[in-house]
């Protein structure tokens, strides 16, 4: 029971004049298709679905008819055409704001709502009754009430499935307060303890199967109501603030107050509360508001924790999520609940919290209304550009942010075009963590990377403008992008936990999201085109050189070629500086830059020994950059694998990220290479060389979110070798990823700080060939 309508009655009569910053808050309203609203006691959560029109970069091969021969094309004609097209994708918008703003917001929506197909708005939460008439009058939509608990569960299932790092444990005294958990492949069964005005304890066993197994009347309403009586403090947040400053020991009777110390034989420590408010009955003195609020908070949190544990034990459940307005990201309540759960289960059960806990009801109500669109069939991704992040509106934590966007908190989720699944070759999908360094925990690394991304921002802006020279307003948009991304970096400095664990990957992805937001879908498109063009010209020459070498010499040359190609990476600042100042920086020069063997990580000898053995059945190759890397590094290497009788699956990004080669580009490049190289041509036609998309648009790689088609191909072909190339995919992510088959991770460290950390110098080489212990045993 999470409603408390009366409590807020008073505050609504106040007429605050509010000006909304609309382009930030109700985005894409003109394309909004379907609405849902969850009105709680103090906060309203509005959900809508919109189609977003945004620009995507497409590459297209020139007509085959026009294509004559490679030689002709190389005389200045680019090998493919880049076009920017409008694409429509689906997006879910969730906005959370104080109930005080509700009328203003409804007016705003009314004025901007173009689409009139919608007739109904799904509504949930206690306030849905109260505001029914207002909503119907303002929006001319029929309010369709949905059961609160069903919405909550539906929303909970949705975020657990779709948002990585949704779940966290709270550790007040830990290195980082928030410790995020990976998405679990199987989210059921779990216990949801919803602490509204009262407490509901719900056991969820499947998507549509849940049961309220218990509850308690001592909940958030008790804290608020009793707290208001005891301290004359009216607002919930103020009560929490009082509590966080108080000392409960002056009000509570502790075990040591009764025993003089601990009650040893029962294992009850002296500091344990024996009787909440026990001292206020005996002492004839005044108690401070802070102390009483703190004692009350402890009393309620402990009580809820105890009941949750009793129910968890009775139903044998170990995953217990806490939500409701009592929690709502308040560190002080998360701490007391965590403490209580830990105490009562002796550490066996952890209290789990959700980043988007406040949105569950709205998400659920929305999903109920959208059932005909089968939203559960799709995968969704959190859009970092359009989401506020955890605790962003907490006034204590971030007064600046509050000023910037009022008290509006947002979450946006993009519908992904593809279904994402685990790579079937992960040794243990439930313990797989893509990222090598968790910047939420590693303060030094966090400082470095935040600065690094800040410093690189000018270059990114410049390149974004250059990629759209023909568009005069590009500079203005690029400026907006700069502002947005800088704000994000600023937010992450204060709240590194805003979007789950902060990682190099999340910093890169956030940048991509921000670029897309301002219609810079592919700032590197022209650079990639130019580099691909240049590299293709050298392809045959490189092949010829390789063919002249002995087998042994060729193997090392292939690896060095792969590594040299990997030096060409605009994502790394050290390299982008050189590339920009010296476009003639060639393939050979890159090879000279490489560290001599022994490399920083060097298992090349094992690799060579392995190559002397039987060929692999099928290799899955996650490719990295365009240009030299893919054409002069990867293709010759792949060609050698093919010649050994190994099938090869080349996995490339579905969408653009930095200068990484996209699936669209790779198809054209492969076509061109096949035209020059009969071996590649033959492999393609025999279906021994296959191109698939990864499902990702990130310079990094999350092996737990890959295109379903890729997973199928990998399984069908009996893949027994995975090659991961580049800093983003093999160092920042997956460096420690354990696979169930042989794997080869290689990269050039193009960042002196990172090289230093790994104990090497800039342009150090990592060549990590690994055989899982199970396979090793067979040899």
């Amino acid at each position: 029971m999470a409603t408390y309508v009366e409590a807020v009655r008073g505050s609504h009569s106040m007429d605050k004049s509010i000006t909304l910053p609309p382009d930030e808050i109700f985005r894409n309203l003109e394309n909004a298709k379907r609405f849902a609203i969850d009105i709680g006691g103090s906060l309203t959560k509005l959900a809508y679905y919109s189609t977003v029109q945004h620009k995507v970069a497409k590459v297209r091969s020139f007509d085959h008819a026009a294509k004559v021969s490679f030689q002709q094309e190389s005389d200045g004609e680019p090998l493919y055409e880049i076009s920017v097209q409008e694409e429509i994708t689906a997006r879910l918008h969730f906005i959370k704001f104080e109930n005080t703003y509700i009328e203003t917001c409804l007016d705003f929506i009314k004025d901007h709502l173009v689409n009139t197909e919608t007739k109904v708005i799904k509504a949930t939460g206690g306030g849905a009754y109260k505001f029914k008439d207002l909503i119907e009058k303002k929006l001319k939509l029929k309010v369709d009430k949905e059961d609160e608990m069903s919405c909550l569960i539906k929303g909970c299932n949705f975020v657990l499935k779709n948002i990585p790092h949704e779940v966290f444990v709270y550790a007040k005294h830990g290195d980082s307060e928030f410790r995020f958990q990976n998405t679990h492949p199987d989210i059921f069964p779990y216990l949801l303890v919803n602490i509204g005005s009262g407490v509901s304890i719900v056991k969820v066993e499947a998507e549509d199967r849940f049961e309220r197994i218990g509850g308690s009347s001592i909940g958030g309403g008790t804290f608020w109501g009793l707290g208001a009586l005891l301290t004359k403090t009216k607002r919930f947040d103020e009560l929490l603030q009082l509590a966080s400053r108080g000392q409960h020991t002056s009000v509570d009777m502790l075990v040591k107050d009764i025993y003089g110390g601990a009650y040893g034989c029962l294992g009850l420590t002296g500091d344990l509360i024996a009787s909440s408010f026990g001292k206020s009955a005996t002492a004839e003195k005044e108690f401070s508001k802070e102390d009483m609020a703190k004692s009350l908070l402890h009393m309620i949190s402990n009580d809820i924790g105890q009941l949750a544990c009793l129910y968890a034990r009775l139903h044998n459940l170990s995953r217990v999520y806490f939500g409701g307005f009592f929690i709502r990201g308040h560190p002080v309540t998360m701490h007391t609940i965590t403490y209580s759960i830990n105490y009562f289960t002796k550490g066996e059960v952890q209290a789990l919290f959700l980043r988007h806990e406040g949105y569950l009801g709205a998400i659920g109500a929305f999903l109920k209304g959208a059932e005909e669109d089968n939203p559960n069939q799709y995968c969704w991704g959190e859009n970092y550009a359009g989401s506020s992040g955890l605790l962003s509106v907490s006034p204590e934590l971030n007064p600046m942010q509050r000023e910037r966007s009022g008290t509006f908190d947002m979450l946006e989720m993009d519908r992904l075009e593809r279904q994402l699944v685990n790579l079937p070759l992960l040794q243990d999908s439930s313990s797989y963590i893509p990222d090598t360094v968790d910047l939420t925990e590693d303060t030094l690394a966090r400082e470095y990377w935040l600065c690094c991304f800040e410093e690189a921002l000018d270059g990114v802006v410049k390149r974004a403008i250059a990629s759209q020279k023909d568009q005069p307003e590009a500079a203005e948009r690029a400026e907006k992008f700069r502002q947005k991304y800088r704000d994000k970096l600023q937010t992450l400095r204060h709240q590194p936990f805003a979007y789950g664990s902060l990682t190099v990957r999340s910093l890169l992805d956030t940048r991509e999201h921000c670029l897309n937001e301002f219609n810079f879908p592919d700032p590197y498109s022209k650079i990639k085109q130019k580099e691909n063009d240049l590299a293709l010209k050298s392809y045959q020459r490189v092949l010829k050189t390789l063919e002249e070498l002995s087998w042994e010499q060729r193997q090392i040359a292939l690896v060095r070629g792969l590594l040299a190609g990997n030096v060409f990476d605009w994502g790394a600042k050290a390299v982008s500086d050189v590339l920009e100042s010296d476009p003639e920086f060639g393939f050979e020069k890159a090879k000279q830059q490489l560290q001599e063997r022994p490399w920083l990580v060097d298992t090349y000898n094992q690799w060579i020994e392995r190559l002397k053995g039987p060929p692999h059945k099928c290799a899955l190759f996650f490719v990295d950059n365009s240009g030299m890397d893919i054409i002069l590094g990867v293709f010759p290497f792949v060609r050698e694998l093919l010649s050994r009788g190994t099938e090869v699956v080349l996995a490339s990004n579905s969408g653009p990220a930095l200068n990484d080669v996209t699936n669209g580009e790779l198809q054209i490049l492969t076509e061109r290479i096949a035209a020059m190289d009969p071996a590649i041509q033959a492999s393609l036609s025999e279906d021994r060389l296959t191109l698939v998309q990864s499902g990702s648009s990130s310079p990094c790689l999350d092996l737990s979110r890959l295109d379903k088609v890729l997973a199928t191909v990998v399984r069908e072909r009996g893949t027994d070798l995975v090659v991961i190339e580049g800093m983003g995919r093999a160092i920042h992510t997956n460096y420690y990823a354990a696979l169930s088959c042989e794997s080869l991770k290689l990269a050039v460290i193009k960042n002196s700080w990172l090289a230093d950390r790994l104990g090497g110098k800039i342009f150090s080489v990592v060549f990590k060939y690994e055989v899982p212990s199970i396979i090793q045993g067979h040899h």
Partner: protein
Amino acid sequence: MFLNTTGCLWILSFPWFGMDIGGTLVKLVYFEPKDITAEEEQEEVESLKSIRRYLTSNVAYGKTGVRDVHLELRELSMCGRTGTLHFIRFPTAAMHRFIQMGRDKNFSSLHTTLCATGGGAYKFESDFRTTADLELVKLDELDCLIHGLLYVDSVGFNGHPECYYFENPSDTQACVKQPCSLAHPFPMLLVNIGSGVSVLAVYSKDNYKRVTGTSLGGGTFLGLCCLLTGCETFEEALEMASKGDSTKVDKLVRDIYGGDYQRFGLQGSAVASSFGHMMSKERRDSISREDLARATLVTITNNIGSIARMCAVNEKIERVVFVGNFLRINTVSTKLLAYAMDFWSKGQLRALFLEHEGYFGAVGALLELLKASEDP
């Protein structure tokens, strides 16, 4: 019965006390021998006589000490002697005055053993020693509780059963107190509600475990009542509670859903949020102190009921025995507990109560004293 009249190997010198020093109250049981021979009377030292007279001729001691006359067990045989067991209580806050009295009455000259349990036995041990030259025998409070409870139940309450339950707990009109026997007490879930609450699963006299506890107990009720209403005593708080209406303070299911919440089988009259109405200023301004006292009592009682019920289910025990001084003169809570056990378990669980609510620890301490005399 585990103590009989022939059990004593040597005559234990009087006075016989058992003491339970809790967080809020000190419970004292005193065995007054009624079979004192003239000879004995002659030999009885003055200090002993004065203690006996002081305790038995008064029903109140100082401002805060009380003898619960209605609870005394008459013609009780203990350790070969026959007499009356008196039940006395005073606030733990008055402990220092009590110790001083012990010194003034020269208690230490009596060469008796003072058996004490409860946390205060530890906390005040050194005060007893330094102020009154008394050495306490400290006893575990849960052992004492169980031993005392089983003993009192076995001797009965002056010819009546010690134990009772409520018939028709869900019907306020037809709900009546019914005496019963604890003939086969095990296993039982023992819920001791003092300042805080301990929940024990008891399988035999000496085989039990503390299942859990909660800090929301009698101390919380009184503490919150004092803060909310300005009352000063437990009696005052209960008196107010008996006149109040908690539904003006608590938010019920029907306040939210207009009626029952059928999706989850919750009755409209169930409390959805304790003190939930108090979030609103208008409501805060319109309630009485009595309503607040009642809501506090109902909140604490329901919560204890809920925890007890969950423990009973987890431990697979059907008999739930509630004891402790929170239940003294507190029929609102006993009936509520009886109702909660019955209703939420669909009749599977039965709540049992005992007349000597809070004194079992002290009785257990006294039994230890007598038992000590049994051993060679």
